[in-house]
């Protein structure tokens, strides 16, 4: 047998370089093979970020120079020097905590879920090189992003304070050292968590919490403003904020040493500066090396891969008990009729898909985060709505009376508007993605003797029932608060479900046409712009559909005709059109359902 000995590279740094080069190669290949639109977007985004960083640098330079001016202290009486000295501490604290938290998710993926660890560890590459590369992989993107904001601020501080040249490279080096130390500690944290919980579940929970937090934070400002809180900042508030920020600048806080060391070096206080900088680099290196060595050992020994906390088995309130109970217990006459009715109304495959989809929606946190969003939106906008008393803003009081009357009339339908808005949001996910959400499991439905009409019915109901429940909840709640007359409320109880049904039909049809079963990441479930088009069309559909219900009411009121005619005409018009929208679009794509999933 002919033998071929590979050239072995056991040296640490070349191995790290090889692995980093591999990552770079993957990124470059990704860019090369991307669509031209994506390439342009990437380049524009990079240029935009660099411009933004330059702008921050300029702004920091000017602003911090202004804050340092003796005239400011003389006229305003606010001494900001301690705050300026604490600025590096604040930036380093932000950097350290951000890297510690953001690296957690990335390292969880890189160490446990990416699937390349076994390949890398079985190749003749030092294990330490693999871990260093993984840490760098986790740190670099977030470090780059944080540096884009932090570095210009600190350079601006240096420029405004005329710090000496040594300050500038040391700022960068300190940031790198702190980022690596944070990533090392994050790796240990990941292993500790993975020891207790399954990595995949942790990733799901992280994604869920992250999405909800991000969304809640993004909407908190709106809610804050709606409650009449002013965004103007008073001098006292600035002073309080400075005091709060200054709390980070305590002598026993290790990140303070990093910041103060840099400021001291910049100002030419060499002894303090060198001492604190040495302490910072020493501690960072120790934390990094300790974390690295411990993480390697924990991973290699299998400690971090073995969950010590056995999962508690869920009580068997599952199919086993349900099915056996159903099978053994005789049905009463009324139950028998109900069961027969259900079977007639919904064939077993439809019921099966409904049951399966509701279970999956509840269990998969990736779905849950998308479903909670409309609820948060609904609650938030309802609060804002009630804050204004359900009345239009009078402004300067110069608006014509007819405009104000029309606006008041529109806002009296706030209950309907809110429930339709929540429904629109929820249906966009449930109905538009009803088919795509099957993903690679679609073969199970495709290989089964399942009628396209049954599949469409099941998917229609999966999207419609929760939306209807949530929509009616909002409708009833807001109607109660608004003290809507009973007739109007009852009429809304017909109009809202019908409008939602029509919207569901339209979105479901778009979901069939744009179905994508090849996604790995649920965020990429929607293929192409069909989903957006569907959402856009239903945005137009909703006011039109609801308009059909209420326009006759306005007309009879304008001509002083009996109200009942308005209700009757509105009911007939609205039900016919929304019913057609609910049935026709899915019916039009029925043929397409038979061919779905065929490549």
């Amino acid at each position: 047998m002919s033998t071929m000995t590979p050239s072995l590279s056991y040296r640490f740094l070349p191995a790290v370089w090889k692995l980093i080069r591999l990552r770079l190669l993957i990124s470059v290949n990704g860019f090369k093979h991307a669509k031209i639109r994506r390439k342009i977007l990437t380049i524009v985004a990079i240029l935009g970020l660099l411009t933004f960083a330059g702008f921050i640098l300029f702004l920091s330079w000017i602003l911090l120079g202004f804050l340092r001016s003796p005239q400011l202290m003389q006229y305003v009486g606010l001494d900001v020097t301690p705050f300026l000295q604490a600025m590096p501490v604040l930036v380093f604290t932000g950097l350290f905590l951000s890297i510690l938290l953001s690296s957690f998710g990335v390292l969880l993926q890189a160490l446990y879920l990416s699937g390349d660890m076994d390949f890398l560890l079985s190749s003749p590459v030092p294990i330490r090189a693999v871990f260093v590369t993984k840490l760098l992989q986790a740190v670099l993107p977030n470090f780059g992003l944080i540096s884009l904001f932090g570095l210009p601020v600190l350079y601006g501080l240096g420029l405004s304070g005329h710090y000496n040249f040594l300050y500038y490279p040391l700022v960068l080096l300190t940031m790198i050292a702190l980022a690596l130390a944070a990533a090392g500690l994050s790796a240990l944290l990941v292993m500790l968590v993975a020891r207790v919980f399954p990595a995949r579940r942790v990733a799901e929970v992280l994604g869920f919490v992250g999405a909800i937090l991000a969304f809640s934070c993004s909407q908190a400002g709106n809610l804050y403003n709606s409650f009449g809180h002013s965004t103007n900042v008073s001098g006292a508030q600035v002073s309080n904020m400075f005091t709060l920020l200054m709390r980070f600048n305590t002598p026993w806080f290790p990140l303070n040493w990093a910041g103060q060391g840099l400021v001291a070096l910049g100002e030419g206080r060499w002894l303090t500066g060198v001492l604190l900088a040495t302490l910072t680099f020493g501690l960072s290196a120790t934390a990094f090396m300790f974390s690295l060595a411990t993480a390697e050992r924990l991973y290699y020994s299998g400690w971090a891969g073995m969950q010590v906390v056995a999962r508690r088995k869920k009580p068997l309130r599952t199919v086993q008990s349900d099915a056996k109970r159903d099978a053994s217990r005789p049905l009463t006459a009324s139950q028998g009729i109900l069961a027969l009715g259900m079977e007639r109304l919904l064939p077993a495959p439809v019921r099966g898909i409904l049951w399966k989809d509701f279970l999956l929606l509840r269990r998969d946190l990736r779905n849950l985060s998308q479903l909670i969003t409309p609820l948060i939106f609904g609650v938030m906008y309802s609060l804002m709505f009630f804050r204004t008393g359900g009345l239009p803003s009078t402004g300067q009081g110069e608006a014509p009376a007819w405009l104000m009357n029309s606006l008041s009339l529109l806002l009296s339908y706030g209950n309907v508007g809110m429930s339709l808005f929540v429904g629109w949001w929820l249906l966009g996910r449930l109905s538009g993605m009803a088919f795509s959400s099957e993903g690679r499991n679609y073969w199970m439905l495709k290989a089964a003797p399942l009628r396209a009409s049954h599949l469409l019915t099941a998917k229609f109901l999966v999207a419609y029932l929760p939306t209807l429940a949530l929509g009616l909840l909002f409708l009833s709640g807001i109607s109660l608060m608004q003290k809507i007359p009973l007739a109007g409320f009852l009429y809304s109880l017909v109009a809202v479900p019908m409008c939602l049904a029509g919207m569901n039909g339209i979105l479901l049809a778009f979901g069939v046409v744009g179905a994508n079963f090849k996604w790995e990441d649920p965020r990429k479930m929607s293929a192409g712009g069909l989903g957006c088009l569907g959402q856009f069309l239903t945005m137009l559909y909703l006011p039109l559909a609801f308009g059909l219900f209420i326009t006759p009411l306005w007309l009879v009121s304008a001509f002083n005709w009996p109200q009942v005619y308005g209700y009757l005409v509105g009911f007939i018009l609205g039900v016919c059109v929304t019913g057609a929208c609910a049935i026709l679009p899915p019916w039009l794509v029925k043929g397409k359902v038979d061919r779905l999933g065929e490549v």
Partner: protein
Amino acid sequence: MSETALIEISTLVKRYGDKLAVNNVSLEVHAGEVFGFLGPNGAGKTTTIKMIVGLLQPTAGTVRVAGYDVQAQPLLAKASSGYVPDTPNLYAKLTGRELLRFVGDLYNLDRKQVAQRTDELLRMFDLTAAADDTVDSYSHGMQQKTSLASALMHDPRVLVLDEPTVGLDPKSARLIKDILRQMADRGAAVFLSTHILEIAERMCDRIGIINQGELVAVGTMNELRSLGKAGEVSLEDIFLGLTGGAEEAEIAEILK
């Protein structure tokens, strides 16, 4: 083995653009027969299987399963067949038991029947202990067994399996081989693709070999031996001879 053909494939063609994936394939699988479908990677095995179970529309030709045309009477054909794909993509957040119940519903089975059959299948595949764990916690072998259990849920007359023994431990592989044999003995038609020639040689009544989309040989082991050159007695020799084994032999020589 009966003379009733439960799978009838007639002049089947599948074209992807310019590429001819399956070219004019015709064969029959009878009741009580285990039929092995062999071929090198990319020969058209999975494409043919997907057309048999109705996952893929043929460009030309017909497939009849249990007497029903898969294109014209898809529901009847699908109700008669069970399918195990090469990769067991199952609903990850359902438990094994829930998945089987769901399959029972899809095939319109009676609820009592589903409960009973589920218990039987879980016991048979040694999955009872994990029956109430979600599928994403299963090993590949357990997922493969769950996939097979779901294919057997409605006791199909035709069973189509794509690489059923990949990733299974010897005990599970043996179990599956026994189940397939029993099904055939009870009058079902079993159509399986495999790369493991030993499995095909030992358990299949007839074997079809596909290469570059064309069915190059079909018959019993003895019939295949008669097709091969003198001295080609093992299925491996016959397979390599029919599918360009000389190239593989050269590669093997380089590796020596």
